[in-house]
């Protein structure tokens, strides 16, 4: 079913292709448009985040001091699970209706379209979390500086999480029971992000300098943005050819 690159007409040779930014923009617009027609995708991750966070006080007790102390960890683990669940279906729809196959067989670089798809997904699934996180953080008695740093760490950290779980999603898109597997693949790789992000928020609540933590998160984001799309593209190529 896949079209061989060699068999493309000369018209589509690399020289006559539209610029990469155009392909990137078109795919981003398409995914955002699809999401805007299916608004539940915007709301569900936020509610999931909210519900998981509110389970913690029910589980460990309503003691304000304890909650304030554990708030960075609770908020980050909830955000991490929410990203994980949302990313599971990242490529599913495109895989089922054949879009993915067309995208992969196009002579455009798959690095670009993978990045566009993950960015669109982050805008839809993770950005709303950032907007609601301060509200939920207040409920866990996190102080003002802590909330600011929480937002910064979420802004830098959640794209890394999206990219990592997209690797898992790309490898399992062809499988029927993929979602548990995506969790098994992605969770161990989340560890560094969790450590530095929670470290940043904790240091902020204790009044220390967070430049180091935020710097590490930014470095990991750069690394993830430059390397993960290769792995995602490779994973998709393997899954689609199967």
């Amino acid at each position, binding site marked *: 079913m896949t079209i061989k690159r060699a068999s493309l007409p000369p018209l589509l040779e690399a020289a006559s292709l539209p610029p990469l930014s155009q392909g990137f923009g078109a795919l981003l617009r398409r995914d955002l448009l699809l999401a805007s027609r299916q608004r539940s995708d915007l709301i569900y991750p936020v509610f999931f985040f909210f519900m998981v966070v509110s389970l913690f006080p029910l589980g460990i007790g309503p003691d304000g001091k304890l909650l304030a102390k554990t708030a960075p960890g609770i908020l980050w683990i909830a955000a991490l699970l929410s990203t994980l669940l949302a990313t599971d279906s990242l490529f599913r729809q495109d895989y089922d209706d054949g879009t993915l196959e067309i995208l992969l067989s196009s002579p455009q670089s798959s690095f670009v379209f993978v990045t566009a798809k993950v960015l669109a997904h982050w805008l839809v699934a993770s950005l709303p979390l950032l907007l609601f996180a301060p509200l939920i953080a207040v409920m866990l008695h996190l102080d003002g500086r802590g909330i600011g740093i929480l937002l910064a760490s979420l802004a830098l950290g959640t794209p890394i999480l999206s990219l990592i779980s997209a*690797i898992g999603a790309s*490898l*399992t898109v*062809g*499988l029927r*029971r*993929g979602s548990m*597997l995506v969790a*098994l*693949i992605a*969770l*161990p*790789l989340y*560890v*560094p992000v969790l*450590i*530095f992000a929670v*470290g940043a928020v904790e240091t902020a609540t204790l009044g220390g300098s967070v430049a180091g933590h935020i710097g*590490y998160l930014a470095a*990991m984001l750069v*690394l993830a943005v430059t*390397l993960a799309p290769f*792995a995602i593209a*490779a*994973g998709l190529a*393997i*899954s689609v*050819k*199967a």
Partner: protein
Amino acid sequence: MQQRVNQAETKTATLWQWINNTFHRFGSPKYFYDLTGKLLPWCWAGVLLVLIPGLIWGLAFAPPDYYQGNSYRIIFIHVPAAGIAMMGYAVMAFAGIVTLVWRMKMADVIAKVVAPIGASFTFLCLVTGAIWGRPTWGTWWEWDARLTSMLILFFLYVSVMALRAAIEHPDVAARATAVLSIVGIVNLPIIRYSVNWWNTLHQPSSIRLTGSSLAPEMLYPLLACIVGFYFLFAVLVMLSARNEVLLREYRSAWVKKWLKP
């Protein structure tokens, strides 16, 4: 002068050809099977002559530690197992690269059989660490940096094995797990570093290339155990790889001949 250059060039060319041929021969299951058949007795000899004496020496004859008494003796299993655990993942990732780049059948056989073996050694390392921690630190488990990064290494092995088990088609499984193990090996240093930074309680390594803080009576049996564990690892990998080769190639003429001599 010109002649000499030409000579050197032909020499490099033949050397390259030789490397190329040897490398490609590894792709042949039959060659691999015959080669490991010849290597296995030597590795068994290594296990018998290095590992077993090393273990007996370390567990029974090495002097007890001044502070820890006899409980320190678990390092003769713990330290080699930790080394194998990490090397196993590196072997798996390297085999993954070979699978993706050269599509070599045998590389995937190695990647497949190394995963459970490496995971077992990781588990052994965790268990012996816990047993040692009980009398020394007073707890079975401590969220210490090295323990935690070992635990995450174990999780990485589990995720690779789970992915392979979930994909039915062997070729797809080979390439998908190859991608995952390469992603894992890129991440391992970051995980290791971040966890280290997060919490450090474990003592730093006692053995370095330049001098060691271990007494020689303890160091030599430990080195014997480390070398012996590598032999054991080689034996285990070869035995299961040979099984896997027979299983995958059971339709081919040489396996049929091997089955019914």
